């Protein structure tokens, strides 16, 4: 039985990729909506164990890039190689099945469900008891439920959201919703975590908390993270490598310091025409 109930499950996800090797390879991806070119010939990679930031001005194509990676959008050109397996296009269930979890720019939680249920939902695919066991409840179904509940409670403790465990998430302030959404993604025990502006709309204190969680997830669990963020301070502090998009093209890719001083990047952010 594969219940992942023991805390050891939080050790590095076993995806058969050595730390520092390429986990995700994006090659020559192009994506257009009608006449709008959202992405043009994008190539970059994400290494196992790193925090990779994707930055760029509004409308640069950052969210579209994540949507391609987790299979919401099908690119017209290019390929994606994840954990050594090449695909022309991901499908959402491939992405989930292979261990890609994500959060959204505009929180996509199950509004009518409690914090606990939202995070438990992240473990849906790992729960196997069929409808007949569910109907009887007592016995295997309950046992499975409790085993997963224990893992979820650890995530709840880790994110310090014990007090809102039973609150419907629709009633929570935005900052906490973002935290719950991170919890749901963590519950999937992903090997690649995609975060779309995890700190948007947060105050300084909330941002510091969230930064700490992201770093802890990366360091303690060895989860590889690709994140989109507008706050440059946060990006510089958190990320190992940064890729910069502008008008759907890559204009820089490298270490944070290097990118920060790149003239092309500075121009893009200042809106210098080109």
């Amino acid at each position: 039985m594969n219940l992942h109930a023991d805390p050891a499950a939080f050790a590095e996800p076993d995806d058969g990729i050595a730390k520092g090797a390429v986990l995700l390879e994006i090659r020559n991806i192009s994506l257009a909506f009608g006449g709008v070119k959202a992405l043009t010939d994008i190539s970059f990679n994400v290494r196992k164990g790193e925090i990779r930031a994707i930055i760029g001005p509004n409308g640069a194509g950052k969210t579209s890039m994540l949507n391609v990676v987790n299979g919401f959008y099908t690119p017209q050109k290019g390929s994606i190689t994840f954990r050594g397996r090449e695909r022309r296009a991901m499908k959402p269930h491939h992405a989930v099945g292979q261990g890609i979890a994500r959060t959204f720019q505009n929180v996509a939680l199950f509004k009518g469900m409690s914090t606990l249920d939202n995070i438990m939902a992240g473990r849906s695919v790992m729960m196997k008891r069929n409808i007949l066991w569910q109907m009887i409840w007592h016995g295997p179904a309950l046992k499975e439920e409790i085993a997963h509940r224990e893992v979820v409670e650890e995530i709840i403790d880790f994110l310090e959201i014990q007090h809102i465990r039973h609150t419907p998430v629709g009633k929570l302030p935005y900052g906490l919703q973002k935290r719950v959404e991170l919890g749901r993604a963590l519950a999937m025990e992903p090997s690649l975590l995609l975060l779309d502006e995890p700190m948007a709309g947060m105050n300084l204190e909330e941002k510091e908390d969230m930064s700490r969680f992201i770093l802890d997830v990366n360091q303690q669990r060895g989860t590889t993270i690709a994140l989109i963020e507008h706050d440059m301070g946060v990006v510089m502090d958190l990320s190992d490598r940064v890729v910069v998009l502008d008008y759907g093209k890559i204009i820089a890719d490298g270490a944070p310091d290097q990118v920060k001083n790149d003239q092309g990047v500075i121009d893009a952010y200042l809106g210098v025409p080109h």
Partner: protein
Amino acid sequence: MLYRTAGQFKTSYAEDHALFPVRQDAMLLGVILLFAFVILPLTASAFTFQALLIPVLIYALAALGLNILTGYAGQLSLGTGAFMGVGAYACYKLITIFPELNIFLAIALSGFFSAGTGVLFGLPSLRIKGFYLAIATLAAQFFLVWLFQKWGWLYNYSSSGAIQVPNIEMFGVTVTGPRASDLVQYYFVLVVVCLVTWLAINITRGRIGRMWKAVRDMDIAAELVGINLMRAKLTAFFVSSYIVGVSGALFVFMWRGAAEANLFDISLSFRVLFIAIIGGLGSILGNYLGAFLIVALPVVIGAVPAAFGIPISSSTVEHLNVMTIGALIIAFLILEPHGLARLWAIIREKLVLWPFPH
């Protein structure tokens, strides 16, 4: 202090998963069950059984079925009446073809026929949502009632076009047909309803219930956590239609005694939908509260003026009833979309704090 939660601490997740983490809830249920199984049967008149108790239970069951689909999985259906009909006709054919079949088993099996029909007519839900899906289920409603009328085999080619429930015995006791006693039929329905409710509670509180609610609240995110939308929706149609089908079989075999096609027309669908809405979408308890309200209302409207010696015609009762139900629906949709179940939850919260509101 009716509801004291103080001092009731949970020391394990198993206890937190108990149906009634608060002791008073379990006691309240105990009292209700005592009434349902002992006190009411001892005291109720034939009229109470026929006009109140049996229909409340059957309507509550139908609403529970609909609620799984609409309240939990977020798929609107206007075909409940027809699916009840599928259960009823299936049961009728089963006992015609297999006269030796135990009636309890026949009713349990007939649910599978409506479950299958439900999945079939639920297929469009994989493509369309909300209003358009409602229209698709409406088409099912009209098609099935038409079929009940035209397909003579279903009613054994009887000249009236109606089905007549025969006397059927179970363990030497007549449970259906003209010779069955109210008490026996009441107990039969009560046992089935309790059993199905328990199973429904179990399904909705675990993985599958979460899966349905996730699809209801945000299908894109549900897909993202690996929930198979097709499977989630079709299991909801299956389970929902199964329960609705069983309620339809009970409706005819344990209450009406006879039926023709138009018994299952759109007004029955709406009646069940109103019960689910007034009771509270996404709740199990609400179906009972809603059914009680809808079934008891005309009885009360008819009885109260009479008790004061005011003559009231049956057509006036009918008009008053329809107007009141309409007003209630509007009031609930605007003021308390989560229905009576939510009102009870609020009262319960107040009782937990009472008499110290802070």
